[in-house]
């Protein structure tokens, strides 16, 4: 009994210590930003009902800069040339309808700079009226593939500015597998890729003010709450940041998080698989050790 009391005292002090240096200290260090639950409540609801067929006609203008791979429509320029023209490579729009919040998307088409809270957003206003905007949104919703990978989601939402070196992703695509040339002994294709990436990153850094960080392990460097509220509204966490508001919906956000977890915390599934076995082992170990101790101390008191 006395030992349990002593154990209780040790446990209480340990827990107080833990509370003070972890939850309490962190609550004091970071300003709390209340999220908006992806409601984008600063934007007015869009009354107009979208018509996908009309939207298709309007969306023909998009391919002037963007590609729409699901419809086999290529972009007029490759990533590097696009960056040279606009500062960044415009995204492929296949997933736009699936990843973006409907209301945000419509307002974005009307006034990109204001809605993204990014002063020099490269995209010009692209819808003449709320009705047009609603039609375009309806069109992109209708063509978005049901099944897209987490990586495709990341590529659309983040991947043209943020590399992910743990997944060999660069702003201009996956690092290609190349091989040194038999005559020169030098991997010329790899050098070429590096050069293109350099040009792209240069333009991107010019456009954003600095090169946006690699997100390989961001999931462990920032709390989930921070990332969530930051993606929802970058200005709320880092006032003045060049990062635009992306306007993801719930599914879009989930895709991005799934991808970031896969690259930044790849051991999660393994921990889940091994953990119960190791704990079960030590429970049985302790049980047997207790039996041994009992037997050893018999007659000692």
């Amino acid at each position: 009994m006395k030992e349990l009391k002593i154990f209780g005292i040790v446990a209480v002090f340990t827990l107080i210590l833990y509370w003070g240096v972890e939850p309490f200290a962190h609550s004091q260090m970071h300003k709390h930003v209340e999220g908006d639950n992806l409601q984008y409540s600063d934007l007015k609801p869009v009354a107009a009902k979208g018509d996908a067929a009309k939207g298709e006609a309007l969306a023909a203008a998009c391919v002037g800069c963007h590609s729409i791979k699901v419809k086999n429509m290529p972009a007029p320029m490759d990533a590097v040339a696009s960056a040279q023209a606009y500062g960044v490579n415009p995204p492929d729009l296949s997933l736009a309808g699936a990843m973006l919040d409907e209301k945000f998307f419509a307002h974005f088409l009307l006034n990109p700079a204001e809605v993204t809270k990014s002063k020099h957003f490269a995209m010009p206003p692209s819808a003449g009226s709320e009705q047009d905007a609603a039609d375009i949104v309806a069109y992109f919703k209708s063509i978005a593939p049901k099944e897209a990978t987490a990586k495709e989601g990341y590529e659309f939402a983040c991947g043209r500015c943020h590399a992910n070196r743990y997944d060999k992703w660069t702003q201009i695509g996956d690092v290609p597998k190349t091989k040194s040339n038999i005559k020169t002994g030098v991997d010329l294709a790899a050098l070429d890729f590096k050069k293109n990436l350099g040009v792209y990153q240069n333009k991107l850094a010019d456009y954003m003010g600095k090169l946006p960080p690699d997100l390989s392990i961001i999931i462990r460097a920032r709390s989930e709450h921070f990332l969530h509220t930051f993606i929802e509204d970058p200005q709320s966490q880092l006032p003045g940041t060049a990062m635009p508001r992306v306007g993801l919906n719930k599914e879009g956000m989930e895709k991005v998080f799934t991808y970031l977890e896969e690259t930044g915390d790849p051991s999660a599934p393994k921990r889940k698989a091994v953990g119960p076995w190791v704990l079960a082992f030590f429970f049985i170990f302790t049980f047997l050790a207790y039996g041994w101790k009992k037997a050893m101390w018999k007659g000692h008191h």
Partner: protein
Amino acid sequence: MAHFDENAKPFSHKWMNERLAVDTLKRVLSTEYWIPKNINFLWAMGMVLAATFGILLISGIFLLMYYQPNVNLAFDSVNYTIMSEVGYGWLWRHIHGVGASIVFLIIYIHMFTGIYYGSYKRGRELIWLSGMLLFVLFSAEAFSGYMLPWGQMSYWAGMVITNLFSGGGLHADFLVEWIRGDYVPGQAFLNRFFMLHVLLVPLAIIGVIVLHFGTLRIPHVNNQDGEEFDFEEAAEQYKAGNVKESKVIPFNPVFLSKDVFVMGIYFILFFYLVFYHFEFAMDPVNFDPANGLKTPTHIYPEWYFLWSYEILRPFSTNIGLIAFAIAQVIFFTLPFLDRSPNVAPASRRGLFKYWFWALLIDMIVLTFMGKLPPQGIWSTVGLVAALTFMALWIALPIITAKEKKL
């Protein structure tokens, strides 16, 4: 020349005995190494520490195989290669990280147990001193290890802690540069701290652990009541079969059986943390690669250094450094500042009882304040706690000198 039986079969019991005295060794080190019976689970912390050190050593060996002590490669060798490519690399890393943090919790419990029961007095001074030496070495080991992932916390902790050696107003910048091998923490710094972490400091730790065990052999382990009795007599009694009446038990297997049980409970907690709650031991800030041109908004040491860090913080540079230096060594002087001859639990020692709890609570307050941003009310609380810490140590010889002899 010793006698060797020519007929003894190689590696037989007799053969081994003649060459290695295995029976004597076993007797002296285990079956007739006597431990008082009147103890509680806190007496198992020594073995728990030894086991944790073993776990740190093994996990460290496996991390060492893929770690790259290079400023350009270190971060990714840890966070990519070890965490996602090496088979079970993530397990070694989480065990190593959690172990490094938890080992200090156990060290503090072990230390405060010693303080509470007066286990640093009457022939046990060297146990205390070698133990404190181990504390310092573990601190060096923890700090040097923290440099290795080369994240933002590594870099800036390296910057701040090495700057302490400039001695404030002394401006001994040459010493700081000598320690770093560079103007800032760079390649030379990472390489030498890597060497310290994997070779020199562990070697020293192993040596001092042996010394620490050695210092226990003659004065024997203390007991719950600080009772002084004749170990020889109690041992004879035990060997004669009066195990119930005897005040001692053999280290092996009786004491060990309890140690192993306590270790079992400890491992449940330990591996729960490894698999489900490791974040506390791996600060998020250190998952940003080191950047010498940007200090993170909040930097703070690991939790086990916070109390001494907070003693540094509320004062101006020079006074802070002196206070910090005192905090580092003051625990060494405990056996000499405690003037009372009583070896007893603090609860029976009059004012010392209040001194003990005041010290414990003050250090917890210092720990809290060490992590909070040094602003507003927190600064004041931190200053008061730091002054209290100093006052407690000044008061110690006075209150213990007045203590009634039990």
